């Protein structure tokens, strides 16, 4: 139980895909123009990550080492197709705004990296926990980026107006350059916080 818990925590903090490993950067930058998009994208990736990890782990004794990457990609592609069809059917608005980035979950390097590094070598439960941790870590991270960009760029928080007439939204934050800038600054902040925490732990 403890092991599962630490696998989840590992994905949330120490190996956070967005802020520590800097993987899956394309959707991170592209869909974070509004907070709901960040949540939707994050949960879609989490779903694919948990189930692809589960299946890779279950099949790990049958997948030959030499062709493992194509096998992983096929498993991942199957689940991202499921997500794509479900989103189109149940939340068409979200599907519309995430657009091309839903089928592109297949080539999200977080998922392939977890399949290769964790699921191919561990049991199904640990792999699922790892998938869940990484997925939620990704979700929280891109939602955070999306909140910053939405508040600064559109003056709204999850769609609610928060400007209060105090400031004028800067449209550039929800355009392409804002994505790079906000991600870069948050990455620096997260890195500094983590380094400070490590230093404190080492001192104790």
């Amino acid at each position, binding site marked *: 139980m403890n092991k599962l818990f630490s696998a989840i925590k590992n994905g949330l903090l120490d190996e956070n895909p967005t802020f520590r490993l800097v993987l899956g950067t394309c959707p991170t930058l*592209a869909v974070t123009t509004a907070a709901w998009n960040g949540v939707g994208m994050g949960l879609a990736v989490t779903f694919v990550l948990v189930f692809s990890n589960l299946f890779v782990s279950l099949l790990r004794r049958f997948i030959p080492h030499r062709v493992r990457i194509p096998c992983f990609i*096929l498993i991942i592609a199957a689940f991202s197709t499921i997500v794509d069809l479900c989103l189109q059917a149940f939340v068409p608005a979200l599907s519309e705004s995430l657009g091309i980035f839903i089928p592109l979950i297949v080539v999200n390097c977080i998922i392939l990296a977890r399949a290769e590094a964790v699921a191919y070598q561990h049991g199904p439960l640990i792999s699922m926990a790892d998938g869940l941790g990484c997925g939620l870590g990704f979700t929280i991270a891109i939602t955070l980026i999306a909140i910053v960009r939405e508040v600064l760029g559109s003056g709204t928080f999850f769609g609610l107006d928060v400007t209060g007439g105090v400031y004028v939204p800067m449209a550039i934050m929800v355009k392409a350059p804002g994505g790079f800038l906000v991600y*870069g600054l948050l990455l*620096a902040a997260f890195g500094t916080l983590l380094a400070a925490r490590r230093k404190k732990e080492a001192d104790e």
Partner: protein
Amino acid sequence: MNLVLIIISAVLVNNFVMSRFLGICPFLGVSKRLDTALGMSAAVTFVMALASLFTYFVNLLLVRLEIEYLRTIAFILVIASLVQLVEIVLQKVSPTLHKSMGVYLPLITTNCAVLGVANINVNEGYGLLESVVNGTAAAIGFALALILFAGVRERLENSAVPKALRGTPIALIAAGLMAIAFMGFAGLG
């Protein structure tokens, strides 16, 4: 005329890296040095042009069989085998080129620009010629951004950057400034 418009749009206005956010991983990963950036650009251009060609026919087949929902799976399989094929052919035909491009080739399978351009071609309803032109132009746009950025990053290496921003954060901020420059092309389309 339409083709010229597609080229300008794919290279400058809707630049894959700077405005559509496709292919960011290799953009950040291999832009540390100019020569690796050149190698990666060449490999990506080659694969994207070929991928646009092949996925056009695969899509025709899928539509004919009425199994369009398998598009993602079919496309990624085509791209993965294409990359493998290019690698094998290159190894036989030109070992020197293979050596300089070799390490980048396997990485291209998971470059979202390749699958992205295949999807965009289908969504926009491009014909065969338009697809290939769009694929090649998008790859040139990717190469342009990557090579320019490699130049910027080589300069960053030698400058005094605050400790917290060293490494990826400053690279992202530099990319943001470059994206502002690319926004200037917005009126051209």
